[in-house]
């Protein structure tokens, strides 16, 4: 089963073009959707998650027309929005059980097992009786994952899930996702490059409502081999270098500025070849230099 997105467009009433003619094919497995804030990621995710109407285009999940048969999509959908809350006075177990019923887990016995297992899986089992109002951001996020995983979904959409997580939580969360990704379509939207590089077999980079790149991360990185250059310099030189070369990123390192630039040949004195990584793919795509 795969998710086919064809010519999807959406313009908000205030004139913002959130999606422009998006066409994507998302196969089974983890799919990374990278892009800066405001790129249209969330709009795309919400549209796939049946919460928003596009102006044009179509989405198909296997044989389901997502836009026309929303109820069928929802029956097999797990969605973790970028931002969400909980009922502060309910306990995790209570609310998860509630959602389990809503997601169609009818049998009481099976439901209880699923709820228990999911709480274990997201490591909230020990605090399952606590009020959600007292949960930390990470715990709440894990709870959201548990809700998304209810009902054995075949399409999972997670929108910037790692934003509020500490490193340990993030690792754990990504592990969980990749495990699930073995038999479902998982779309992970993020602006953190490592999330994608570590997990996703395919990815797309989206900016200002357009797909800028669709590729397998490893191949995309390989394609940059020999084209990324690095130079350490003073901050004062930066303006000149930026003017002359295709700078894709700058970082401060111990008071000095590290510049990475793109070029099929060494851009000039002081630049040394660098091993490309996914971040270079991301930045060079956004900068528009790779094409």
């Amino acid at each position, binding site marked *: 089963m795969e998710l086919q997105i064809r010519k999807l467009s959406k313009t908000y*009433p205030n004139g913002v073009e959130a999606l422009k003619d998006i066409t994507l094919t998302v196969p089974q497995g983890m799919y990374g959707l990278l892009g800066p804030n405001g790129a249209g990621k969330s709009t795309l995710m919400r549209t796939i998650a049946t919460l928003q109407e596009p102006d044009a285009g179509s989405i198909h999940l296997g044989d389901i027309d997502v836009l026309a048969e929303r109820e069928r999509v929802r*029956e097999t959908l797990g969605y973790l929005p970028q931002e*969400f809350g909980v009922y502060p006075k309910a306990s995790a177990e209570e609310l998860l059980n509630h959602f389990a019923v809503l997601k169609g887990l*009818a049998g009481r016995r099976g439901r209880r097992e699923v709820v228990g*297992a999911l709480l274990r899986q997201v490591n909230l089992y020990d605090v399952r009786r606590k*009020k959600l*109002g*007292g949960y930390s951001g990470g715990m709440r996020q894990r709870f959201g994952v548990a809700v998304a995983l209810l009902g054995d979904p075949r399409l999972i959409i997670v929108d910037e899930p790692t934003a509020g997580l500490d490193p340990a939580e993030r690792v754990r969360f990504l592990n969980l996702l990749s495990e699930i990704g073995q038999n479902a379509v998982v779309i992970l939207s993020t602006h953190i490059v490592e999330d994608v590089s570590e997990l996703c077999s395919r990815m797309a980079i989206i900016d200002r409502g357009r797909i800028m790149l669709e590729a397998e991360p490893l191949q995309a990185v390989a394609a940059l081999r020999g084209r990324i250059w690095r130079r350490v310099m003073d901050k004062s030189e930066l303006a000149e270098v930026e003017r002359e070369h295709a700078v894709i990123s700058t970082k401060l390192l111990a008071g000095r500025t590290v510049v990475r630039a793109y070029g099929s040949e060494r851009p000039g004195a002081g630049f040394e070849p660098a091993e490309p990584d996914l971040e270079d793919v991301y930045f060079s795509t956004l900068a528009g230099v790779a094409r």
Partner: protein
Amino acid sequence: MKLRQTFRFEFAYQARRVSTWLYFVLLFVVSFFMARDVLVAEAVEGGYSLNAPFAVAQVTLVACILGLLPLAAFAGAAAARDVETRMHPLVYTAPVGKAAYLGGRFLAAFALGALLVSAIPAAMLAASLLPGSHADLIGPIRPGAYASAYFLLALPNAFVATALMFSAATFGRRGVVSYLGGAFVFFAAVVSWQVVAGLLGHWSVAKLTDPLGLTVFYELSKVWTPGEKNALVVGPQLSMLSNRLVWLGVALGVLALTHLRFRFAHVEVGGRRFGRRRAAKGEQAPRAREAATALSAPVTVPRIRPTFGTATRARQTLAVARESFRLIVRGWGGPALVAVAVLLILVGPLYFQDEGFPQLPTTGEFVNVLEQAAEHGMWLVVPLLIVYYAGELVWREREARLNEIAGAAPVPVWVSFAGKFAGLALWLAAAQALITATAMFVQARMGYYEFELGVYARVLFGIRLADYLLFALLALVVQVVVNQKYIGHLVAVIAYVLVTFGPQFGIEPGLLVYGSDPGWAYSDMRGLEPFIGPWLLFKLYWAAWALLLAVAGVLLWPRGTERGLGPRLRLAGRRFTRPTAATAAVAAALALTFGGLIYYNTSVLHASHAAPSGEEWRADYERRYGRYAGVPQPRPTAVNLRVEIYPKRRAVEIRGTYDLVNGTEATIDAVHVATALGVETREVSFDRTARPELVDDKLGHRIYVLETPLRPGDSLKLDFGVRFDPRGFPTSDIDASVAPNGTVFGAEWLPEVGYQKSREVRGAGQRRAHGLSPRPDVPPYDDPAALMDVGGLGPIMFEAVVGTDEGQTAVAPGALRRTWAQDGRRYFHYATDAPILNSFAFFSAAYAVREGRWNDVEIQIFHHPAHALNVDRMLGSVRASLDLLTKRLGPYPHRQLRFVEHPGRRRTLFSHPMNVRYQEGFSFINPVDDPRGIDLPFAVVAHEVAHQWWGNRLVPASVVGAPVLTESLAWDSALEVVEAAHGREHRERLLGAMRASYLSPRARAGSPLLRSTDRFQWYRKGVLAMNAVREYVGAERVDAALRRFFERHGSATPPLPTTLDLYRELQAVTPDELRYLLADLFEANTYWELAAKRVEAERTGTGEWRVTLDVRARKVVVDEEGVETEVPMDDLVEVGVFPAAGDGGAPLYSQMHRVRSGEQRITLTVPGEPAGAGIDPRNLLIDVEPGDNFAEVTGGR
């Protein structure tokens, strides 16, 4: 500086919002219509103009109540927006002081409130300036009234409310908590007014505890005359000013407390302190294991495929319902119900007493008290919570920011909607269950154990719950459609007010008023008949509409992230699937069917035979036939009827004959017959040839020209047939006179002879509005026509055969000659042995009868079998009354005297000749528990028996003061019976209870007793005046005067007596030196203001005690307009000296003294040690403050 910036920013922020101005416009519109149309009837009846200062205050206060909602929105937003938007870390860390921050915010909210309530005077001014349909009711515009209404009523109300709301929201950290402050203000006002003042009579307390000033206003409304209502401005009264001052103080105190307790500190949103601590602990444990578990093998989740059949939908609905129910119960829904229960336990018993006379808390009465919501503002708790939780439930996911997760869940919108409705419904059912349980607890606590669960079930769970559910559905759909929580609240509240209190605004129930019904009343005898059928039809109709509303709710249910109207409508279009369309179609079909049925019943069937309503037909009648008033007409001398009552069908057929005689000195050539309206008069014929010259069935007037005129002294027979068969039903005021059990009707359905003055429009204002010539409502006592007009009441011989259903007893006047069964029906033949007044009624019900005798008079009490508490007392009272009154006034001319119970909650009785009817409410009086030991049923029965003389034989002319001759004298007689049977002290206790009515707020203005036109004068003042005359002049003399008065005028034939005739008899027995007292009591509206200031006692050498009593005395006359004139006083007033309570109680001294106006000292010597002394200690004179007449001994040696 910072305060100003805070204020400016907040004010500008809220002033930019559309809703702020929407509130303003709404309040303006509501005030405008209240001032122009809604309160018209009250103004006309009250005799003041639509823009009188009194009316201005009234509109202002009512509008202020509505204004509480927007005020709460302003205060809540100003107090809690920072926390709610999570902006507070930025604001709290800014260098702003508490005072500037809170002060600026509060002042901004108050300024918005001040702006808001300025809509009220503006609207009222617009209403009086713009042309309207009631231009004749508009008086001159008095700027002072508007200024006072704004600055002394509206503005302080807004300040107090805003202060409490702001503080509540500040402490609650949520804007919505401000509504709790609003609810407090509202309920404090309602409880002060209705409970503390209304039920408990603590007016001085209630006037201070009412934050909105309603109680003060209510008192003024009772105390002021129409002239004062037109002239005096409400506001600068001492009571209003002190009320304002007290609450201003409370508001400032609360604000100071808020300032004191407020901290710029971190706020854990949504969590309570203990919750946070526990959570923190919980977090530690997994964190430690985290790294390890991250590496270990993952848990496997069992793979269960979800299913989506009907069972799942049901389970999902239940899950949503349970979640919603829990939200309500854990929120305010639980505590509020507990509060209602506690309030019910505290206040409930108060409903079962009237002027201190206890009543049985029967289940029927209890459900009427609990569920006739329009009568008792306190029960608004539940509807308000419905409004609140409709908002909470619809916004639940969005406010918890769970809406995206929930929206993506495979739950059809109808499941969400149905689940939330079910949750609300479940809570409402729980509320009714709790109220039922509490009511039974109150009953048990009052020693009453006849819990009628069926009645509770039918009324609280049948009628009331249905109403709640219809409203709950509306409130939910309003929230869905409006999609703005607070505006949704406002719309829902307005909808509720319009439906529930609509009739008071002139919005009659009908097919266009959602949830309305034609009304109902519960009676033990009648049950819910005949109301329940029409009620059910209306509710089925509204249920169909509710289903349609639910479809609309489902179509527009907020799911996903689209907020614009366009996308929502597109989405709705897509949700309009075949099943939805089918549901809508079915609902529409049902609405059409039931609506059609209702329309057919109300506008076709009922309209075809209904009596006309309103005043237009009365005016028409007078204009057309008024010229026949006073035309000589024959009068009835005998009435012979055949009455068939069909209780189950609710129909009555009457055939009858009147013997008419020309008692005038003129020859009569045309007979005017007034046919009753609302019944079918089938035929009218005479025993001589008569040509119908005019038959007007619409106004009920016929003229028959006799071929041979009727000479003086000649007689003729009038035959007629009348049918009462109310097919269909009206949209309100269903005629319940014929019911499956408990039928009662009088002569009102029978034709009468002559022009009917009683049909004319009454009230100066109303007559002017219809262009009718002015006339006093009650003729003056020199009206010659009135003195000669018996009004069709003249004595008749009466005979009737009454048939009713098997198992019921039919009662009519006369001796029961025979009773028999025929064709499954039972017949009763009644006939009188002596003439009676032409005033009678028929009764039919499954009665129990209590029988007794007094000499040769048969006494019967026909009562509902369960209402037997007072039956023996009633019997005893009839015997005692006949005993005394036959001696005092002359023989009782009949051989039967019956009391007949009929449905109705009121405690009223009416004395027809031979048959006294009483409403069920009278049966509930519980003299056993009377704290003052007054046997009220005994006294009231004596009063009704006395009417057999005063009213049924002595018939006063229908002029001013007439009821003094019936009501005051019947009570005077009843007191004599009470004294004869129970002793003098019992009489005093009863008089004391009557005097107590002076203590509740009451206008001192009034006409003299001789010309009195109001009930209080007839039932209270007249009795007290007669009592005073008995004490001063002597009982024997008064009895002799009354006997002579009765003998001279007791024949019910013209010329009829007036109060002047009674007064003459009283004057005749009164010594000259007491004539002034008679004049003070009867000819003027006189008040004595007597007070004992100080009492000293001193032992004399001879072992006696010298008592010095400082008193103050004053006498005033108050006219109809309330103008007080002090008159010089030099009156005989009783002075009494009393021993300590333990020493027997008989006064040491009791003598009449001359007391003049002003302060004076009375010195006397008594034989024993005095404990206190008083001036007019028995309160014989009319003194509105009887409490200060007595003082305890304070000084001396």
